[in-house]
């Protein structure tokens, strides 16, 4: 699924990263707890979160995530956008809630796809 398709099905707005709209995303993770996000490695994942602070972008950076979607109408601040630019991570925001957003992406074929190194 492309970032542009995620944008379309979630009725999301692009906050940053027009040049990454064609980027392919293969799995998804929805959480407001960054420690839980860090516990499971996913390939080419999109992160859905209602948490707004720079550590969201940092977490995505460390995990090599491909895109971040802010749910429940949350907006990242300027510092977060700058950090996303530095690391080439597109940012989307949607008014939809976490459960609904995850459900829509699941319905459109995205899966969790998580594994932990043993």
């Amino acid at each position, binding site marked *: 699924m492309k970032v542009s398709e995620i944008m379309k099905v979630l009725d999301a707005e692009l906050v940053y990263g027009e040049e990454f709209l064609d980027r392919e995303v293969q799995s998804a993770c929805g959480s407001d707890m*960054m*420690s839980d996000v*860090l*516990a499971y*490695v996913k390939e080419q994942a999109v992160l859905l*979160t209602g948490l707004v602070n720079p550590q969201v972008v*940092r977490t995505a*950076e460390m995990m090599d995530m491909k895109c971040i979607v802010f749910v429940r109408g949350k907006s990242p601040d300027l510092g977060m956008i700058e950090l996303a630019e530095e690391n080439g991570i597109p940012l989307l925001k949607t008014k939809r809630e976490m459960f609904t957003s995850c459900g829509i992406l699941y319905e459109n074929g995205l899966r969790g796809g998580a594994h932990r190194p*043993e």
Partner: protein
Amino acid sequence: MSDTIKLHYDVDGRDFTRAGEASGKIKKTLKDIGFPPEVIRNTAIAVYEAEINLVIHAGGGEIDVEIAPDYVEVILTDHGPGIENVELAMQEGYSTAPDQVRALGFGAGMGLPNIKKYTDEMKIDTVLGEGTVMTLKIYVK
């Protein structure tokens, strides 16, 4: 050995928004060297969790990195309160972090277990009231 790279970072314990800066720099250095993506990611995640710990539990600290062709070693030193029960702290879900840390997305009790998962070696030397030294090693296979 002449082909090791040494890096040093001071981590400011007062600014949560800047936590992870050192980890980001370390990750970029490993990328520039051209290590396998899995080694880079595992190192980055482990160091990031540890750096967050320095900020939320220890009031900051220092990170020393040694990069060799076949391993990455990271030593995190702090002068915080020390870890009272390391065995307990290693359990998933056990956390002593205050509620305001949880509101920031951390303190789920996954930090130390995550660090162990993503590294090949993990050693914790801690003295109550004096501080903690954590040594992490990731091998390039």
